[in-house]
C-alpha cells in the first residue's frame, strides 16, 4: 500500500502577544512544529504500512526550513520526504495550497491513500483535505477515526458525525482527514532520528512540478485578508449580573463566541 501524508509546519503556539506599551503584535521566537493533527495522520500511515507493508511518503508545502519536519517524519517511520518549496508558492490560501499539493502528489504518486490531519491549528480551516480530493478527482472522507483496508482497492472507514458516527466503504485511492482520537503518535527512536538526519529530502519548485504559476501562492489565492485585529476580551474574570435567566443568556452568548 502506497500512502502519502500531508504535513504542515505551524507555529508552536497560537498565542498572540501584544507589546504592553505600543499594543502592536509581537511574535515569539519559538520553533515551528508539525501541525498536531498531521502527526496523527503520519502515525496512521506508518501503522498501516507496518501491518500491510508498503511505503509512506511525507509531503509538505512550505519554506525550505520545513525540511526539518520531513526529517522528523522519516524519524517516525516515513520512508521519504518531499518538500514543495518555491517563492511562487508563498501566500497561498487553501485553494492555491491544494492545487500545489495536488501537483506534488501526482508527481510523487500514485498513492492508494492520502492522509491529512483534520485541520491545521494555525488556520483552523479544515479545507485542504476536501479541496485536495477535488483537485485530484478522488473521493474524500472527513473526521475519520478508524481505517481498515479490506482489499480489492477498498477500505472501510469509521468517521465521526454530529450524532455519533458512521461506517463507510470507500474506493481507493481516496483522501481521508483524520481526527486526533484515531491513534497516539509514537515518539521517534534514536535509530529513527539517525535515519531522518541521513535521509535525502526531495525538493520540488514551480519548474519541477510544471504547475501554472497563476494558480499558485498569492496569485492563485482568491481570498485575501484585508484586516486583522485582536478581539477585545476582558483579561480579568467578568462577574455577570442580572437574574438567572439573563445570566444564562449571557453565558450562552459568550459560549457561542468562544466556539466561533
Amino acid at each position, binding site marked *: 500500500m502506497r500512502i502519502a501524508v500531508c504535513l504542515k509546519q505551524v507555529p508552536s503556539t*497560537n498565542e*498572540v502577544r501584544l507589546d504592553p506599551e*505600543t499594543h*502592536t*503584535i*509581537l*511574535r515569539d521566537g519559538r520553533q*515551528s512544529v508539525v501541525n498536531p493533527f498531521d502527526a496523527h495522520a503520519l502515525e496512521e500511515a506508518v501503522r498501516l504500512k507496518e501491518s500491510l507493508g508498503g511505503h509512506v511518503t511525507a509531503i509538505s508545502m512550505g*519554506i525550505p526550513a520545513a525540511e526539518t519536519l520531513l526529517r522528523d517524519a522519516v524519524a517516525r517511520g516515513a520512508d521519504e520526504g518531499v518538500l514543495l518549496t518555491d*517563492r511562487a508558492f508563498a*501566500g497561498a490560501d*487553501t*485553494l492555491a495550497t491544494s492545487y500545489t499539493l495536488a501537483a506534488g502528489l501526482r508527481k510523487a504518486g500514485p498513492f492508494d491513500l492520502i492522509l491529512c490531519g483534520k485541520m491545521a491549528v*494555525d*488556520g*483552523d*480551516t479544515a*479545507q485542504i*483535505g*476536501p*479541496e485536495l480530493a*477535488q483537485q485530484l478527482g*478522488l*473521493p474524500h472522507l*472527513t*473526521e475519520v477515526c478508524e481505517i481498515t483496508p479490506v482489499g480489492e482497492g477498498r477500505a*472501510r472507514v469509521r468517521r465521526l*458525525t*454530529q*450524532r*455519533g458516527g*458512521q*461506517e463507510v*466503504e470507500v474506493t481507493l485511492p481516496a483522501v481521508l482527514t483524520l481526527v486526533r482520537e484515531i491513534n497516539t503518535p509514537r515518539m521517534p527512536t534514536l535509530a529513527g532520528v539517525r535515519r531522518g538526519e541521513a535521509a535525502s529530502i526531495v525538493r520540488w519548485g514551480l519548474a519541477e512540478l510544471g504547475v501554472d504559476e497563476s494558480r499558485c501562492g*498569492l*496569485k492563485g*489565492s*482568491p*481570498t*485575501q*485578508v*484585508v*484586516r*486583522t*485585529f485582536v*478581539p477585545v476580551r476582558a483579561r480579568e*474574570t467578568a*462577574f*455577570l449580573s442580572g437574574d*438567572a435567566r439573563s*445570566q*444564562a*443568556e449571557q*453565558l450562552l452568548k*459568550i*459560549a*457561542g463566541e*468562544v*466556539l*466561533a
Partner: protein
Amino acid sequence: MSGLIIDRARCVGCGRCISACPAGALVLEEGTALVDRGLCTLCARCVDSCPVGAIAVERGSAGAADGWRGVWVFAQQEGGRPLPVALELLSRGRQLADALGEPLCAVAAGGGEGLTRPLLEQGADLVYLCPALSGDHRAEPAWPELLARLTAEHRPAVLLFGATPFGRSLAPRLAARLGTGLTADCTELDIDPDSRCLLQTRPAFGGNLMATIVCPDHRPQMATVRPGVLPVSPPCPRPGARVVRVEPPALPAPLTRVLGEWTADPSAAGLAGAEVIVTVGRGIGVRKNLALARRLAGLLGARLGCSRPLVEAGWLPYDHQVGQTGVSVAPKLLLAFGVSGAVQHLAGIAGAEHIIAVNTDPEAPIFSVAHEAVVGDCVEILREMIGILEEKTK
C-alpha cells in the same frame, strides 16, 4: 506586482517587523526594513506589527465579478427540519441580500413542508428543493454535483454553509470545484458598501486574532459559518416567495457507500480531545442534578466531566474525573458548575482556553481562572441554559 511592499519613506526602522517575522525574511538596512522575497511567506504578521503602517501585502487583480447576483444559503436539515444554523444563516443572509438589493435563496433537500416553511418564514425569496436527495451525510457525493450545477445556472454572488461537519466537508469540495475562495468558520458577515464584496470575519490563531477576509475577483464568495453565533431574526416571510423543485444529479457509481451509523455512547467520558466540556462539582447538590448537566452537555455538543468528590461519591466513573489525578483537559471552552476549584483540579484544567464558572461561593478558587463567572445557584443556571437552548431548537 504582488508581494510584500515596504514603504521605505514611512519606515522608521523600529525593527518590530523583524521580531514579528517567523520566517526571518526581514532585515534592517540603512535604517529601514528590507524584505528577502525568497524567505517571505506573505503571512502578513509584519503588516500588523508595523506601528507606522509602512508594510502592505499587494496582489495583482484578476477576473471580474459581474453578473453574479444573490445570496444563497445551504439549508442543512435533520429529521425533515432545518438545523438551527440554517435559520441563522438565512437571518444574516436576509440582511446581506437587502444590503445588495438582491434575492435570498435557500438550497435544501429531502423533507417537505416541515423543511421549506421555516426557510420561507426566515426570509428566503426562493427555496431550491431537491426532494430526491437526502439533506445530510448520506448524500454527500451528490451535493457538490447539484450545487455546482445550480451555481453555474443561477450564478449567486454569495454561497453560505453552516460550519457543521457536513458543511465543512461539502463546502471546500465545492469551492475547489468552482475554483473560488472559501472562508472557514466565520463569525461575522457583512457587505462592504464600496466594493459590494462579502466581508468575512473569522478567528485566527486559535481565536487570539480576528481576520477579515474578502474574495474580490472570484464568484461565488463562499463561507462556512460557525453554528450558534449569528442571531436568528423574527420571522419575515417575503411576498411572492416560492419553492422551486430541482432534479437530483445523475451520478456515476459512487465511490463511497455508507454501511452503517451509530450514535455516540453517552456514558463514555471522552474528555481528552473534547472541544467543549461541562464539569460539575459538589455544588450541584444532589445526584439527580447530574441529568441537567448531561442535558446541557448534549445540547452544547460537550463532554461531561467532574471534580474528584463526585467520583469518590460514586456519582460518575473515574474517566470523568478532571484534574491532576484524573484527566487533564484542553477544551476550547469549559463550563464549570458547582466546582470550587481545588488546586489539583485547576491544574487539570490549565489547558482550557476559555473557562466559564458558576458557583455560589464568591471566594471559590475556580473564579480565579474563569473568564466569566456567575455567583449563584448552578442548578438554576443549568435549568435556564437548557431552557433557552431547547426553545431555540424547537
